Every structure is written in structure tokens, then in C-alpha cells.
């Protein structure tokens, strides 16, 4: 009986075998060019100065044979890198468009000069040009909350307020929230550093509040489960920090989400607004109303009472449809 069951199981395993053969999984067309391969007319369009907020860049040239090409665009300040590759007899807008996005966490900066390297598979010679970014990329289906650039600090800037132990008590010399223009930035020249000590042993150290120019953010009409709160987050590896992110509604609802800051270095954090929980029971209607969101709040908490907590944030942006991806 058991032998029969095993036979049936084996037979079922065999019958359940299926094979996917999606051609897209096996790599782009690969060509190794011959030794007499030549390239003519390599240029950047529409010009070597690109406003990424409004323009896409693309490249032009013709080759002596069909070839596999690769552009590597490297931001000389930001560390952002973008690779555009393809295959063809010529390169033009149809096969080489760059929309201003980046392959790593860093974003191309306004005013930044970028090196463009063009190479062909099998050819030793490489070709170079430059692009100067005149304005940062803009991303569809996003609303930028704050990128911490310009003269945002001292503490209070346009549509932002900072508060807590930074000002209200404790050892303010050990606690601060300030612009950080060291290398710790993913976008632009600055991020914001939260660095404080929980002097009154309440876990809570301080926070920032962001509010729109009008009463509410313009999220009306979006699907609640498709809106994401995104921010770059830098961890110092000391495993001492919690952030509590929240957003408030005009009717009194406060939706919160706590995030533990672990690891070391930058990560891109994406939180779906629908996954926040209502922490202000008794006020508001307890329903997520996107047309009533009137501010975002970020609180810095120590994981252990009485200890130091610190982390950097950069480029807070709300995205629709999916988590933000540079």
C-alpha cells in the first residue's frame, strides 16, 4: 500500500514538471565586433547640458557593423551611475534614451558634470563625452516633501518645524538636528542629521514636522494602498535608534509606524501609508482619508532609555503606485 502511494507520488512529481522558456531571461543580444570595427559621429543630444526635470538625453553615432554597445554615465560629485545598453547598427533616440534615473541609491545632482563612456563589446577603444546636469531629475507620480537642500536650517524652514529635547530641555549641547553636508547625502549636497541623547529617559528625543503650503497635501484621488512614504536613511551601525514616522489628518487621526534603524550605511526606506496604524484613538474617524493629510512627522527615539540615537535622512518623497525607485 505504502509502496503504491510512493509510486503515485513519484509519478505525480514527474507529471508536475513544467518548463518556462521566456526569452527575456537569457540576456540581451550579444555581439563581439570584429577588429576593423569603427565608430563615427558620437554626440550627445539634445546638447551636453541637460535639464533632467524636463528633458531626456540620448546619444548618436553610426557603426561599421551591428554591435552591442554600453553607455556608462557617472556623476562626478554624487557618485550616481547609470548604464544604458543595447544593440544595433546605429545609436539614436530609439535605443539610447536616458531619462535621468540612476542605477544606485545616489541621484544625479543639479550642476553636476557627468562623464559618459561609450564602449562596444569586443572593441578595445572607448569613446568619451560629458553631460552637465542643469536641473535634477523629476519623478512621475511623486510629491517631494523635503530634500533638505538650500538654507533649510536653522531648525525652522519653509513648511517644516523641529522640536523636542533639542530645544525644550535636557542637554541640548548633546542633541541637535542639523544639515549634514558631509559625504552623507544621497540627493543634492545635504541631508539632515538627527543626533540626540534621551536625557529624560523617555525614549523620545525630538522630531521634525513637515506640512504643505496649503492646508492638506494633494493626495485626493489616489488609492490608499498605493501611496508610499519614502526616505533615504543612513544608519551609523550602532543599533541604538528608532524612528517613528507618522502623518496627521485634519480630523485628528494620527497614523504611525515605528522603524528600527539597523545596519550600516544608506538604505531607501519605503512605507505604505495604509500600513500605518491609528495611534490617536478617540479622535478622528479612524479612517484613512487621503484628502485630509495635513502633515508628516518624524520622531527620533532611543532604543534604550537614556542613550544616544542618531541617523541621517534625505529626500523625503511620497510616491504613487510603487515604492520610490531612483
Amino acid at each position, binding site marked *: 500500500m505504502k509502496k503504491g502511494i*510512493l509510486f503515485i507520488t513519484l509519478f505525480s512529481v*514527474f507529471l508536475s*514538471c513544467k518548463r518556462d522558456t521566456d526569452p527575456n531571461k537569457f540576456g540581451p543580444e*550579444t555581439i*563581439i565586433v570584429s577588429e576593423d570595427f569603427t565608430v563615427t559621429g558620437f554626440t550627445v543630444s539634445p546638447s551636453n547640458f541637460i535639464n533632467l526635470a524636463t528633458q531626456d538625453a540620448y546619444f548618436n553615432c553610426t557603426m561599421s557593423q551591428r554591435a552591442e554597445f*554600453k553607455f556608462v554615465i557617472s556623476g562626478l560629485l554624487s557618485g550616481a551611475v547609470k548604464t544604458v545598453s543595447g544593440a544595433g547598427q546605429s545609436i539614436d533616440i530609439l535605443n539610447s534614451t536616458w531619462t535621468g534615473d540612476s542605477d544606485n541609491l545616489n541621484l544625479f545632482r543639479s550642476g553636476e558634470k557627468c562623464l559618459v563612456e561609450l564602449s562596444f*563589446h*569586443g572593441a578595445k577603444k572607448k569613446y568619451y563625452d560629458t553631460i552637465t546636469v542643469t536641473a535634477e531629475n523629476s519623478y512621475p507620480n511623486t510629491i517631494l516633501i523635503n530634500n533638505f537642500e538650500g538654507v533649510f536650517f536653522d531648525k525652522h524652514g519653509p513648511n517644516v518645524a523641529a522640536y523636542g529635547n533639542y530645544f525644550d530641555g535636557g542637554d541640548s549641547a548633546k542633541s541637535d538636528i542639523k544639515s549634514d553636508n558631509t559625504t552623507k547625502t544621497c540627493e543634492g549636497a545635504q541631508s539632515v542629521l538627527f543626533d540626540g541623547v534621551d536625557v529624560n529617559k523617555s525614549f523620545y528625543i525630538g522630531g521634525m514636522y513637515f506640512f504643505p503650503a496649503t492646508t492638506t497635501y494633494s493626495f485626493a484621488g489616489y488609492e490608499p494602498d498605493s501611496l508610499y512614504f519614502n526616505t533615504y536613511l543612513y544608519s551609523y551601525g550602532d543599533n541604538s535608534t528608532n524612528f517613528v514616522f507618522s502623518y496627521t489628518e485634519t480630523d485628528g487621526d494620527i497614523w504611525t509606524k515605528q522603524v528600527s534603524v539597523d545596519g550600516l550605511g544608506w538604505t531607501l526606506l519605503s512605507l505604505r501609508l495604509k500600513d500605518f496604524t491609528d495611534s490617536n484613538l478617540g479622535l478622528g474617524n479612524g479612517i484613512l482619508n487621503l484628502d485630509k493629510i495635513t502633515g508628516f512627522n518624524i520622531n527620533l527615539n532611543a532604543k534604550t532609555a537614556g542613550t544616544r540615537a542618531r541617523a541621517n535622512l534625505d529626500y523625503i518623497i511620497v510616491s504613487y503606485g*510603487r515604492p520610490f525607485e531612483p
Partner: protein
Amino acid sequence: MKKTNVLILGLIMAAAVSNAQFNKVVDYSGLYRMNGTYNTLSGPVLNNDSLSERRSSNGYALFDFGINVAPYKELKVSTILRSRSQVGAFFGTGNLIQFRQIRVEGNIAKVVKYQLGDIDVGMTKYTLYNPDESYQDHESEAFAMRRNIVAYENFNYGNNWRMQGAQFESSLLFGRFLERVKAKAILTRVRKAVATNIPDRYVMGGTLTVLQSKIIQLGVNYVTMFDNVGSALDTAYSFSNRVITGEYKVALESNKILVNLSGEFGPSYFKYHVASKLKTEKYNDYFYDLGAAATYKPANLKLYGNYRNIGPLFSSPTAQTIRLFPFNTPTELSKLNNGTTGRQATMYDRMTQEGLYNQSIYIGLMQYLPIYGNVTPYGAATPNRQGITAGMSYSDSSSIITLDAKIDKLSEIKAEGTNKLRNFSAYQGGFNLDLGKLVASKKQLGISLGMRNEQTMRGGQAPINFKTNLINSGVNIEVLNKLDVLLGAKYLTGKGNELLAQRDLFNTILSFNDYIINSKQTILTGGLRYRFFKDSYLTFQYNHFDNHDSISAANNYKWGQIWGNMTLKF
């Protein structure tokens, strides 16, 4: 001394004291090792380089102290405490004491054996398997000693993976029509949730084997690897992979001939959700491996062959993960170019450097270096391969000579980047000759020689022509009682071009990087070994390594290394 060290020492002392009270239920095991190297580097690689190391020395001493407590027949608790210090660094005060292994094992009602804690797990080559990193057959004993240390340090016990979790086994005897049923189950966590967006990851699986008789054996294997959704933010990643295989073995035996038919087959199911990509990638594939073997018993001669077809998208991370990071920088003579770039790990580093090895399971196909094996870089479960393997092995009745040979003729199933398939050939073989037995001497005298040749070919618009040769040889001569002279040589060549697939996190190929080499690596070794008792020895060896790169002569160098080692195991 740190508090943890005090605590650990206290535990050791407590165990020693309690031994008096729990006589015959506590026993100890240990391994002591003193290891030292002295290195010299020379050659064109140091031209115009005044900063990189020309000479270096390294060494450490360690003691693994195993405490096994068995308060009841059905239960054993064991731990291995490790004390390790760098030679010349802080002396005893720089010692680091840590737990190397903690395990509980026993049986339930004498029916189910179990192990909890640090466990070594393995199933079949297509489900849960830790494949060897390169061809090592017929190597010198001098090299085998180095490999054994690297394997021990990285828990590479055979082809098992070291994981943390639980393992259960049971074997039930039946009656006349069904001899025995064996079952095994494992449950391990292979990754702890990290930060906000990396969830816990588990590996679970099991086998059920039915031995109908000595003739027929049937089995089913199942292994799944999955993320614990909810242990991190659910806007991040969620992975799962399942492999189910069926197995059969049929043995037909006469007085002189034993014929074995065997096979394994089954599907894999891959699913990976990455919220930021708005993508849930799913694909299924399958494999089958059907073989036959015949042994002529009077001559100990075995012939075998099999046909396998491993789907291009067959996914089995627990059988396809490579045990070594080929691009990691070695610790010996690690920097070149005025100390600015890491030296690339060579054949000699792969054999001797403990830190190059990997103990984690990766869901994507890892990068590899074709010179060390291009035909099946991910072991038998290498995806996108079909073809035959045939071979033979022979051993005389006294094991004076053992020899083997094997041929692989494989090809891709699905072309990568073109419409032309790669074709792979591998030829390997060698022998071990025990001259001591042959001349009826009580002293050990052995010679070994092995080789492996690989070829990868493809035509079309992206042609590939890549060849490697690896030769292993060794001699061991017992010149005085338990005192051996050890000689060894390895010679590796690689020439031609390959295209290395660059994959995204879904294993989809995004592009191909050129891999063009024309290089030779040579290791020559000579030394002495004194054997105290089994697995315990004192040895001094001199190793000469020559790295010759015909494409870039500036990369050429010679590395001389004196290696001393004392290992005591009890």
C-alpha cells in the same frame, strides 16, 4: 578580560567539576592547531611599486574544546568552545573565546533521532548539497592537509551545509514486502531579519525513502526556502523557492556483475516579490538525471553513464550556491599596485585561505571564475545543461592501485545572448598508486596523478573558445617511522574567452562581461610531516607559487611560502 570570557571559562570549570558528579556522562574532545606562514613576493607585479608587501608572516594558535554531556541515554548536549589568538598579537590577553558549535541531540522513544542547534544538513545533489569548489582528485597529501583545515574552519563537512535549526530522522522496519522506510526532516533559519526591509529566511525540507528490498529503493525529496513575510516591512522583499524530486534505485546482482539503475527528477518553483520593482517574478522548470552503472565484481571494475537535463531556469539555491567567494581578496599578501588594489585569489589561495569561503545560501546564481571550472560551476545542479557523463573506476583487491576516468559532453539547452548554444567537454582521470603495499613494505609510499581538461565552444556572432587544463600530482614517502617526505605539484592553465552573465536579483541575465585570459598557475611543494597519531601531525613545507599572465605581464609574480603547522586532535 571581557565578562563573556569570564563566563565561558566559568562554564568550562563548572563542566570539569561536574564531571566528577556525572561520571561517565561527560566526555571531552579537542583540536589544537598552531599555524604559521612566512611569505615572500617577487616579480614584475612589484615593478614601480614601493608600498605593497614583499614579505609577510602570519600565524595563529587555536584550541577547540568540545564538551559532550549525556545525562540520559536519550539526550546529549555538546558544545565546542574556541580559544584563538594571533601569534605575536597581545599574547594571551588577545585571546578570543567564543562558541564554535552548540548542539543538542537525542532520540524520542527510540524511534526519532533529532539534532537541534548547529547542524550539518544535506540531501541530494539537486536539492540540498554543497558542491566542491574545483577538481581536487589525486592531489598530493600536502595539499589535502591545507584543504582539510579550510574545510574544518568553514564547516564544509563533506557536501553538507552548516545551518542552525533542527533535524529529525527516523527509520522503520517493515515486513516481508517492504523492508524499511526512512524519513528525514529539517527546519533551519538561514538568515535573521536585518534592518527594516530584509525578512527572516528559512530552509525546510525532508526526504522519504522506501527500501522495498535490496533491489528497489524509491524516494521523494522536498526542500523549500522562503522569507518570513512580516518579519520586516512588507513593502520590501519576499522570496520562495521549492524543489520536489523523485528518486529511484534498482540493483540487479549476479555472482559477478552488479547492475545499478538510478535516477532523480523533479520540478522547481521560483517566486520573488520586490515591491520597489513592482514585480513578482515567477518561473518553473525541471531536471532529470537518469543513469546506469555496471560493476564487474571480480575485478572491482565499474563502468557508468548517465544522461541529464537541467532546465535553464531550474532553481535550487540550496544545491547551486557556491561555497567560495571567488572575487574576495585573500588575507596573505593582500594588496598590490602600491597597496591600492586587492590581489585576486589564485588556485593557491583557494586551497589555503580560510576567509575566501562562503557559509550562506544565495538565491541568485553567484559569480564564478571559469578557469576553476566552467562546465558545471554550480555542481551537478548547474542550470541550462544537457548531455551525457560516462566514466569508469577500478581498484585492485588490495587497493594498491585505484584509477578513474570520466567524460562530460554537455551543451546548453537555451542559448544566452545569441541563437547559438555553448558546447562543453570535460575529460578527467587519474590514479593513486600505493607502492608501499606493492613491495610489501610497512612504510607508506604513494604516488598520485590526476588531470582535468575542459573546453567550452560556441560559434556565431559572439563566439566563445575557452580551454583549461589542471594537473595534480603528489608523492609521499615515509623515510623514518611516521616521518614522511611530501611532494606535490599543481599546474593550471586557462586560455581563451568566455562571456560571464551579469544577473539581476531575479536571476535574469542583464548583460555579459568579457572574460579573456591566457594564464598559467603553478604550485610546487615539498616538506616533512611527522604523524603523532591519527589526524595529528607536525609539518613544515615550502610552497612555490608562480602566477604567469601572458596578456598582462605586469601581473606576473612568484610567491614563496613556508608553512608550519601542528595539529593535535583527540
